[in-house]
């Protein structure tokens, strides 16, 4: 297909992850009160950003492989 699905998935989740983690970082303890003391924005944002980056990496590797062929 014209577009590798891993690119939009990777882009969306890296972006959302960074947004969330950044927001969690500046919100601190007040923000975490709602989620029973866990700063879920920060931690879950980080998890999402790692997942997004991994998707982008896979897409990039597939592209490099296709080009070298």
């Amino acid at each position: 297909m014209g577009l590798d699905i891993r690119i939009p998935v990777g882009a969306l989740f890296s972006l959302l992850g960074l947004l969330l983690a950044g927001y969690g970082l500046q919100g601190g303890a007040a923000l975490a009160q709602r989620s029973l003391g866990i700063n879920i924005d920060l931690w879950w944002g980080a998890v999402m950003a790692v997942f997004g980056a991994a998707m982008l990496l896979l897409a990039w590797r597939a592209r490099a492989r296709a080009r070298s062929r």
Partner: protein
Amino acid sequence: MHPKAIDWIIMGTYFAVVLGIGAALKRSMRTSTDFFLSGRAMPAWIAGLAFISANLGAQEVIGMAASGAKYGMATSQFYWVGAIPAMVFLGVFMMPFYYGSRARSVPEYLKLRFDEKTRGLNAITFAVMTVFSSGISLYALALLLRLLLGWDFNTSVSLSALIVLVYIFLGGLTSAIYNEVLQFFLIVFGFAPLVLIGLKDVGGWQGLVAGLHTVARSRGFAPDAWLSTWGVMGSPHENPMGIDWFSMAMGLGFVLSFGYWCTDFLVVQRALSAESMDAARRTPLIAAIPKMLFPFLVILPGMIAIAATVHGGASGLTLPRQADGRLNYNMVVPLMLGRYFPNGMLGLGLTALMASFMTGMAGNVTAFNTVWTYDIYQAYVRRDASDAHYLTVGRVATVVGIALSVAAAYVTNRFNNIMDLLQLLFAFVNAPLFATFLLGMFWKRASGHGAFAGLLAGTAAAAVHHGLTLPAGAAPGIKGGWIAVMHLYPSPMAQNFWTAIYAFGVCFLVTVGVSLATRPRPERDLVGLVYSLTPRQRTGSARWYRRPAVLGACVLGAAVVLNLLFW
């Protein structure tokens, strides 16, 4: 629940990506096959994720959490009994005929195997069903937006319809499939923290078990009733669902589940978009792996909510009550989102819900425009037009399909129990259809007249059974008993299962009877359509984990283990 700027930014980012995908794909939509079947070029894992995502609409996300609270662990039977075996059967045994016959839709397969009238009947009933399913997703989305964000019904319906319209119009099935993959990950990432925080709230798994024991005792069941599946199905009175093991295995596990997963074009279309026969066969098998784990994502929140409500949790989460004093189970997910998620995560959770409703709608619309264009327009209106003409018709059908869904959403808004009606439609339409397919694919003697008569008789049998029975506590009417009340079922679920069993049984017997009395099609016409007349598939890839039969066996084994673990 008060969304702040960060939540709006998260929602906005998602919508920008969705519309961007549509725009990026517009260039590759040149032929009608590109638009309706993604040019048959999807890798198996993408088709597989789209396959489960297309089914993950409003009923699934809100409904499964509600059932988890109402019926407990037994709800997981909809996955471990009601989905996995049928998905394996589809991939291993049925897909060779769907994909191999080059049929572009399920009704088209019926035409190739049987005759024109069988196809026409199926195309029309299917088109009606997709419009209603799509309308219900749209309705659920509008309700959610009204509840959470305070938008009015008209604004939310038109805005959501417009976004879905734009991305299908531009990118066709590919766009819908890409968005289904996005939605799959959004649901996983949006719901997993809900379960984690919820478990912490009720005191971990141990706390949840203790809470559910209290729930079960307070309702007069054995302590394990909310935590077991088969163990409490000895008789209908032992479990909150009112189901015994026979109607569970036969009604849900066999008829309803195989009827839906093996013959509903909404899901089959995703597999038909795959790049090769092997990929098409692996599609439902790959889909089965995450599907098995979904109960922990969508049912567990309901179980946590009921435990917190009855037994008490750290945060004091309590389900609201309806006007009649009964707990409002449909509020499980919105309630937990609002209670547990701080701003930021709230935006993500809302995005996941919206994405699920929008793809639920888009899935039905893409199935609708394909069936309309190939099986109704091309078959009965204009037979020999150019491919470009059918591509245009497909785009127009998308607009019409969305307009009809909007109308259906307003109808749903007027009649609050149309959900029950839809469940009933499934029992009426899909359950007899599975008998037709089973006989069509595995018995070469089955004839066109037989299939048509069987389908009609099966649907009639469903109607008569529904007209003669009633779930306990309901008034005769839309819930059943509109002819006379001859039998009372303990729950609507039990009634549904038995309606499906009768529809299937009658369709099966009538198809066999009429087929034996009529002339079969010559065998040379049935090569590639019937099991005994088709050469065995040789799987191209040598690696064991890519072979459909091996993969299917592994998936089934895992489902058995899950059944035993939560017996």
